[in-house]
């Protein structure tokens, strides 16, 4: 909730003092807390970003959940179950962080299942093979980490703190994805082919997770001024490619981009253009699995309505009993 306003306080002077305090916090790179004054744009941006992030965790359970019942060994099944469960946990922290900004979970859920809210487009790609569990861990969680580590220092306290915990688990997820691919690459010919085919499909979409190129990213500047975003989309994408190339060598997979080449002068790997038309198509809802993902989530929510209603009725009755006794 925004600052408490009483009748005797002059609102504009309160806002002025709050704004000065907000500017001071940002200038000193300190945290903004839920009770602090904040500009409406800052609040709205954070609600949008945090809830989208939460939605991504929740929708992201589906492409991996797809393989829980078919995981090829009991150990892999256990790891995958734990991972998908972590994602539900991340969704929960993030919804809670967004709630501190004055939006409730039911509203955010409504936005998700009606298709009004966005989530990371990467989860609109399907997972036809087991190797996709490796690629999601290595590439998708790897990109997520590059994006999220700087968010641990985001100016909004509850978000930054949630990200600290999430990043710890994500880095474990990335390692296990890498390990799945490593096992496949050291396995039979069919397993190696499965791994390479999967990396071919996920590489470009993972690079697009950082968002459009900087000159086409209208909101980035403001987020950087607010200390929410610390590095530009292109900087993070470069950092990710620099990290991937040597890891791909260890795995023995080929990254599907003939333009990847070390650039001595820049001290970075060069890489080819991405198909941004595809990015915008998937973002607009025309990806391979957009409709299915949202429909599944809506179905689970609607099927569970009577269960949540029963739990509420039971809790209310208990509360009444307690008050009466």
């Amino acid at each position, binding site marked *: 909730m925004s600052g408490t306003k009483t009748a005797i306080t002059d609102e504009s002077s309160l806002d002025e003092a709050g704004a000065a305090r907000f500017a001071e916090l940002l200038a000193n790179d300190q945290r903004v807390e839920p009770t602090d004054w904040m500009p409406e744009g800052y609040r709205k941006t954070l609600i949008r970003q945090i809830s989208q992030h939460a939605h991504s965790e*929740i929708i992201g*359970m*589906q492409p991996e*959940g797809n393989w*829980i*019942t*078919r*995981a*090829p*060994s*009991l*150990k*892999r*099944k*256990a790891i995958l*179950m*734990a991972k*998908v*469960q972590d994602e*539900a*946990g991340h*969704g*929960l922290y993030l*919804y809670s962080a967004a709630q501190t900004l004055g939006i409730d979970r039911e509203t955010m859920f409504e936005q998700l299942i009606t298709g009004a809210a966005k989530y990371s487009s990467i989860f609109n790609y399907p997972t036809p093979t*087991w190797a996709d569990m490796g690629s999601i861990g290595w590439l998708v969680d790897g990109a997520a980490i590059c994006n999220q580590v700087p968010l641990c220092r985001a100016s909004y306290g509850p978000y930054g703190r949630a990200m600290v915990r999430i990043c710890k688990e994500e880095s474990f997820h990335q390692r296990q994805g890498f390990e*799945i691919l490593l*096992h*496949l690459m050291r*396995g*039979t010919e*069919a*397993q190696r082919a499965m791994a390479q085919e999967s990396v071919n499909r996920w590489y470009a979409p993972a690079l697009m997770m950082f968002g459009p190129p900087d000159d086409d990213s209208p909101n980035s500047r403001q987020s950087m001024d607010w200390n929410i975003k610390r590095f530009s989309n292109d900087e993070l994408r470069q950092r990710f490619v620099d990290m991937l190339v040597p890891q791909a060598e260890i795995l023995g997979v080929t990254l599907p981009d003939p333009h990847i080449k070390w650039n001595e002068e820049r001290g970075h790997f060069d890489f080819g253009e991405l198909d941004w038309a595809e990015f915008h198509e998937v973002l607009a809802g025309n990806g391979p699995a957009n409709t299915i993902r949202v429909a*599944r989530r809506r*179905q*689970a929510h609607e*099927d*569970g*309505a*009577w*269960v*949540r*209603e*029963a*739990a*509420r*009725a*039971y*809790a209310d*009755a208990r509360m009444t009993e307690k008050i009466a006794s």
Partner: protein
Amino acid sequence: MSHTSNRTISDAVTAETIATSGSIAPEAVARYAIGLGDDALILAQRLGEWIAHAPELEEDVALGNIALDQLGHARSFLSYASSAWEKTEDDLAYFRDESEFRNRQLFEQPNGDFAQTIARQLVASLYFQALYNALCQSTDQTLAAIAAKAIKEVDYHVDHSVQWLMRLGLGTEFSRERMQHGLNSVWAFVAELFSNDPLTANLEGIAVDPQTLQEEFDRLVKKAIAEAGLTVPTVPAARGGGRAGIHTEFLGPLLAEMQVLARAHPGATW
């Protein structure tokens, strides 16, 4: 508490430590352990189907947790069992056919709606609680250690299912109906859990005779169901036979899904 004695050993017990410990299960013990492992594995597989479809996020986490615990128990029992024939847990889980599975039929029953899953979970967790409490006293050190570790987790599973039994039984008229329906749907498979288990023959002191668990189970389950304002169903018992490899039609498709990838790549490691 009967399950505290093995706590020090038990904390270290996992499928991996059993597999690398070099301890070899005598064949009769291994056959018994397969039954216990299959019960836990098939239930874990069913619960895994819920993940990403639960009524609320907290339940995605809770059901996932329970599934993961059950899978852990399964892996320990199957790792131990597999040592008798120089096999692995995965050989047993992925390369046996339907008639070679020894799980009781309750565990292969479909999830149904959330109430039916809770009904199955209530019966399963109270059964496991009684069983593992007794198995902690087994003279087989490995079985006792697995049970001692599992019981701590199962105590929590009992709590989870009893709490939902209350919420659904006493929540709304609709949830009460669903919960009663859930109990009615699984009740035919309760009797088999406590019927004579051929795999326990000649394993006195090592295996638990399931008939000795029924009294405690009945007492607790009746109390919980009554507190939730529901009725203990009176339906004829199914014919059973899971321990002899006789199953309902639901196990085949479950195994087909579980085993499909592993069987497409025989000899591969993952």
